[in-house]
């Protein structure tokens, strides 16, 4: 039941062709150390699920710049010109998902739900190819779950059971992705003993966390 792992050991989990979710919003709340291991592992043909593709020279942006990603599912790519370039050159498949829908799809993946009905995207390109359903006289899109082989998330503090608290705007997609992958690895600034995080303030319960890595802790 020891969930702790060194950053070094993380490298071994990545394989070509994997689907990987990564927390963070424009790099804030992104697991920089885990992404660095993924970079140095060399896995390619990845499907990446993340809110955005950050910046060309930081975080998951580097995975894009290094042509390691063949499919990106995100809500926003404007801050990384390389993503747009690869998309327009058809080197990278980009599936743009409204941010709230992306959050719900990941939540569905983690919560065992088969999808949600949302009005977001009705009457736009987003509705193409989707099941539509009218309920209570409103037209909705049926948005399906997203799951990954691995979720890489970032928290401020973990206890040894994996209970997590986050830091400010660094929370974003991390708590959702923590339920939505077969292997969930969290990078934390600080590891404490069980009992040191008030159970009322835990955001992510430890049972969903498989591995804990302390930032900078080689």
């Amino acid at each position, binding site marked *: 039941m020891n969930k702790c792992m060194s950053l070094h050991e993380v490298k071994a989990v990545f394989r070509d062709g994997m689907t990987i979710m990564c927390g963070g919003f424009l790099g804030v709340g992104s697991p920089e150390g885990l992404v660095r291991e993924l970079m140095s592992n060399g896995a390619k043909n990845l499907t990446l699920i993340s809110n955005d593709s950050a910046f060309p020279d930081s975080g998951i942006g580097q995975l894009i710049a290094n042509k390691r990603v063949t499919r990106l599912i995100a809500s926003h790519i404007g801050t990384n010109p390389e993503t747009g370039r690869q998309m327009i050159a058809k080197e990278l498949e980009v599936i743009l998902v409204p941010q709230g829908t992306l959050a719900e799809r990941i939540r569905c993946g983690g919560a065992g739900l088969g999808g949600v009905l949302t009005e977001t995207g009705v009457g736009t390109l987003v509705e193409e190819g989707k099941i539509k359903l009218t309920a209570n006289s409103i037209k909705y899109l049926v948005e399906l779950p997203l799951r990954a082989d691995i979720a890489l998330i970032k928290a401020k503090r973990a206890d040894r059971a994996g209970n997590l608290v986050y830091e*400010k705007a660094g929370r974003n997609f991390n708590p959702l992705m923590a339920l939505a992958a077969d292997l969930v690895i969290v990078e934390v600034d600080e590891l404490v003993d069980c009992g040191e995080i008030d159970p009322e303030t835990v955001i992510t319960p430890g049972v969903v966390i498989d591995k804990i890595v302390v930032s900078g802790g080689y």
Partner: protein
Amino acid sequence: MNAKEIIARRVARELKNGDVVNLGIGLPTLIPNFLPSGITIIVQSENGFLGLGPLCDEPNPSLVNAGGEPCGIVAGAAFFDSAMSFALIRGGHVDVSVLGALQVDSLGNLANWMVPGKRVPGMGGAMDLTTGARHVIIAMEHCTKDGSAKILTNCTLPLTCSGKVQTIVTEMALFRINNGLVLEELCPGVSIADVRNCTEADFTVSPNCIATPGELI
């Protein structure tokens, strides 16, 4: 005062005390600087908090607005995850969403997330905001940098939302969308003919159309 400031100042006058407001990237972030005295708003940041305030101390790398710029929080703030953030947005708990536009039309359609084959920043939270916020205000300069119209009969770019925009504020005028585009206010020094010249869409002039009073801009 430049065009952006004029627009931000006019939008600020649309806000009521206690409104929960989401401010898009760029121009809309200027709005809190122009709130009339006695009006306090609660700013929602879709990356995960309520109670966004000005940056007071040193920037904290974990505390940025939805555009990634360092910011502060006010007393009574709350952090949450992206699902909660958009539950608030989609669920009607955000009173006002202020966004920029590439194009907006007389049906209340908005286009602000892609120029096919050229620039595709993505919709981010804009589609949810326009779907869920109670009042959607477009705050933008009246024309593009090369002088072409952005207020159209029908948007030609891919839509962000269909028929959700209620108000358009530019440095020339304020329109409401109510069975078509209605001119409600003219900025000082701007004529109705000037607006028609810069607006592709046809519009009606409200019988109550006023020159925006000085104290409102």
